[in-house]
């Protein structure tokens, strides 16, 4: 076989091998939703795999950082508890109207709160975040995978959501610098735009 022929075979075989590996179903991940560990992973990944959920969770943390104490820790306390109540409604099959619109609207409203550095009274902020938490929780509760271990799913789900809030707070703490405030407000704008995209059905 000539050198040129060998090179052209390599050009075909290498991408083919890469493509093969990429499209093969992974045996290691084939049963991630089974058993206790599967339930934990499934619950943990659930809030992270929906952009509409992710941006709203991060926005809660960002807004909390803007509002300062005690909102910086109160909002991440209110959200998971009320979200769990919404999740319980979803698990029990209790219908809540306008779930998808509510989730999208949460991104728009919370994003705008960050953009405009809104500082309403603490109870208003808590009620607003709590109302949106019901929608997010209900969606997650309804979408529980049948095969997942419910108990460990609950643990993973709450921890995943909480870590998104902490990520938002960590980003929000940049507001102690001027450039950081601009970055956070731009982030809030991006969140509001993404929420708007979901609201009008573009995303």
């Amino acid at each position, binding site marked *: 076989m000539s050198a040129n022929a060998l090179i052209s075979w390599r050009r075909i075989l290498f991408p083919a091998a890469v493509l093969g590996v990429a499209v093969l179903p992974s045996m290691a991940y084939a049963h991630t939703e089974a058993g206790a560990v599967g339930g934990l992973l499934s619950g943990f990944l659930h809030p992270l795999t929906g952009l509409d959920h992710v941006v709203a969770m991060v926005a809660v943390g960002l807004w909390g950082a803007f509002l300062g104490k005690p909102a910086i820790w109160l909002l*991440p306390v209110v959200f998971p508890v009320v979200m769990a109540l919404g999740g319980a409604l979803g698990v029990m099959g209790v219908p809540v109207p306008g779930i998808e619109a509510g989730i999208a609207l949460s991104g728009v409203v919370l994003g705008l709160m960050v953009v405009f550095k809104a500082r309403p009274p603490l109870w208003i902020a808590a009620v607003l975040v709590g109302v949106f938490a019901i929608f997010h929780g209900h969606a997650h509760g309804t979408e529980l995978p049948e095969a997942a271990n*419910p*108990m460990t799913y609950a643990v993973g*789900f709450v921890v995943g959501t909480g870590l998104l809030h902490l990520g938002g707070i960590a980003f929000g703490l940049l507001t102690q610098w001027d450039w950081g405030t601009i970055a956070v407000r731009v982030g809030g704008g991006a969140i509001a735009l993404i929420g708007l995209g979901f609201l009008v059905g573009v995303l």
Partner: protein
Amino acid sequence: MAAGGVVVMMPSAAYAHGKIEGVGDLFNGLAHPLRVPSHLLLLVALSLLLAQQKPRRLTWPMAVFTACSGLAIGVAGALDLAGISPLIPLGLLMGLAALVVWGRPMGLPMRAAVCALVAIVAGLDSPPEGESLLVSLKFGVGSWLCLSVVVVDLAFYASLVQAEWVALGRRVMGAWVLAIAILMLAFYAKSVM
């Protein structure tokens, strides 16, 4: 009301704990509290609550917890109990988590009482499983050691730093535990409906 009482007291087959084959009775006992999410969270919530005070104030509550958990496991084994309804540890878990979120330090009698309550519930729900007295004894000792070591360790290390941000972190974690307990309760309710 009677039916409600039966549901509350009845151990649920769906939440039966089971044994790991081939690892020995003592290890099975040790692993037992760690394999039941509601038990583990109960221990975490109690540790977060106790950690609101400095380490030197943990001595008596931990002594009460250790004594009561051993006693409860012994009673569960002697009476051959099949565990208790998951509603009891879940309800207690929600109450404990709410106290952690509330964040007010409690006096010694209250802390000791809470420790006794958690120890009794966790102990009664960890009945020694074995076909002979020796096997049950090994299993029971393993469960007792695990319950005690987990609470002593977690509470001690969580109480070492009493800075404001650590206290806030404990309350946020309390909210997570409360949220998990609410979801677990919903899943349990759905499973028995």
